[in-house]
């Protein structure tokens, strides 16, 4: 327990005044343990919240509150899903299953949750990778083009950022649909078929994220222009473009790693709305339908999976950051 606590404390060393004097290896182990603990807590809270919901899950299996199942059918379902066992047996079974990647069976699809997830994951990963990559590239290019320029350029850039960052993804998507699918007919409006169907969802997801990232990258880039290594590069006679491409670019990319968690959260949350808007297959739309139909095993499986991805990304960033930027390692 104290080890866990130390791990969390070390994890937040960057953001709080406290510092940990632990040796690097011990700190890494503590952080990994801390992440595992957080994940366990997240799974437990999700499970508890979902299964303490009033209402008999057996009804959800048999077609929702409007269905009128026989007592025999209810009893059979309770036995089949283990709903008649004491709560702590069910919880332990859930934890044991979760560790081995087994989240039970979807009430609606009547398939193992992991099968449903595996079947839907491909489409979402495709969309998330495309959108994440596009967002990063757009943000870096746009920020480096506009950082440290004349006042008018920076003013315009920040208005563009603010507007794009404020656009609700679903509205942006509707505008894109209207123009590129319905008016011009260039791209399909719905579905998962082929690369063409990926274009609009990717843009919908990527543009607002790119705008937020660009704001951060531009701030860092402008601060980088004042750094001694940039000034010395200038003194050596490097052109402005070379300074931007070599020194500022590298420094900005480093700053972007801190945003990885933000980016992943944005992609995971955005996938729900984007996939719904474009009637795409995927985890986001599956989660929405699971929430709507109270398909609890599927909700729990999807949410725990997302939390795991998110925690893992944050952990990796946390561990990598001092390696990428040695100054932070020394400060912490």
């Amino acid at each position, binding site marked *: 327990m104290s080890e866990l606590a130390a791990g*969390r404390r070390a994890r937040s060393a*960057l*953001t709080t*005044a406290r510092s940990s004097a632990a040796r690097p290896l011990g700190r890494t182990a503590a952080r990994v343990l*801390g992440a595992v603990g*957080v*994940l366990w807590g997240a799974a437990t809270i999700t499970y508890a*919240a*979902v299964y*303490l*919901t009033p209402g008999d899950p057996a009804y959800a299996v048999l077609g929702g509150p409007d269905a009128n199942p026989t007592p025999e059918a209810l009893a059979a379902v309770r036995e089949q899903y283990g709903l008649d066992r004491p709560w702590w047996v069910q919880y332990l079974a859930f934890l044991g299953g979760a560790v081995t990647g087994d989240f039970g069976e979807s009430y609606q699809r009547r398939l193992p949750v992991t099968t449903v997830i595996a079947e839907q994951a491909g489409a979402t990963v495709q969309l998330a990778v495309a959108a994440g990559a596009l967002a990063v590239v757009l943000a870096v290019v746009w920020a480096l083009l506009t950082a440290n320029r004349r006042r008018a350029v920076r003013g315009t850039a920040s208005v563009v950022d*603010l507007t794009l*960052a*404020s*656009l*609700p993804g*679903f*509205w942006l998507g*509707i*505008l894109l*649909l*209207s123009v590129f699918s*319905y008016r011009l007919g260039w791209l399909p*409006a719905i579905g998962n078929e082929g690369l063409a169907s990926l274009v609009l969802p990717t843009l919908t997801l990527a543009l*607002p994220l790119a705008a*937020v990232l660009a*704001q*951060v990258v531009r*701030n*860092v880039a402008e*601060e980088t222009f*004042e750094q001694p290594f940039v000034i010395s590069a200038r003194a050596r006679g490097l052109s402005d473009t070379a300074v931007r491409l070599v020194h500022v670019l590298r420094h900005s990319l480093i*700053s972007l790693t*801190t945003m990885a*968690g933000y980016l*992943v*959260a*944005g992609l*995971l*949350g955005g996938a*729900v*709305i984007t996939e*719904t*808007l474009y009637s795409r297959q995927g985890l986001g739309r599956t*989660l*929405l339908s*699971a*929430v*709507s139909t*109270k398909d*609890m095993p599927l*909700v729990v499986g999807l*949410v725990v999976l*997302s*939390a795991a991805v*998110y*925690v893992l990304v944050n952990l990796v*960033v946390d561990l990598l950051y001092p390696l990428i930027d040695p*100054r*932070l390692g020394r400060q912490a």
Partner: protein
Amino acid sequence: MTTVLHRPPTAPEPLARRASAANPRRARGGRRRGPGVGVVLALAFLVFLGVAAAWPSLLQTHDPLEITPDLLAPPSAEHWLGTDENGRDTYSRIVGGAREAVLLGFGAVTLSLVGGSLLGVLAGLGNRLVETVVMRFVDIGLAFPEMLLALVVIAVSGRGARNALIAIGIAGIPTFARLVRAQTLTIRRSSYVESARGLGLTERAVVLRHVLPNAVRPVLVLATIGVGTASVAGAGLSFIGLGEAPPAPSWGVMLSTARNFLANSLWGALFPGLAITLLVVSVTVVGRRLQRGTGAAR
């Protein structure tokens, strides 16, 4: 929804601060005179929304539920922003939807702020055990992307406008708790708190009069910006059918029905989205202005 603060949670701050202090241009940019055109326009739009939320009939030109034969019409003198698929007046429906957007934005952020402040102050002032327990819960809360946390809450509580508000509010609590705790830790060691103790104030008075207001005030400014993102999240939930239900005039619902008629008309989808975007931009502009004015947090 993580865009609440429009900032990375773990920016390399000491470096950033040192650098910006050495950058004269940025320093000059920070000290502007007068509120500026942007802030005035933003405030004007927010006042308009406030009136629309409080007394919608004052601004409406039609009954937002009145069905007319004039379907999917473009903007005209009769219907300023056109009509929807049932011939209902889009402008009047947008005015009618302002209440949901405003209530949701402010309600959800208030919930996050109150919950987050309680937890944050508790963790900042409590003994080790209290701090450990509270912060572990906050860590666990932060392990969920906010949109997913909101979906879990809705999975448990059911759909509807009120549940959407609660879901978004709860999803924001961990972020605020962490910010308030960081503030509390700094303030607890500040000289004015020590002097207040030295003057013989009771612990309760110190906390209520000095620690709480000073820990929450800087976060309050960030909360203003959060109002915009919370309304977008709420509209998003309505859009995917988990928030406000039709036929109520709700921006998210209007967009989601208009999506089905895109092949015929863009008008129904254009203006509700514009209203949401303007709300977010206005709130952000005003929030940033406040932030600069008070030299607030982070």
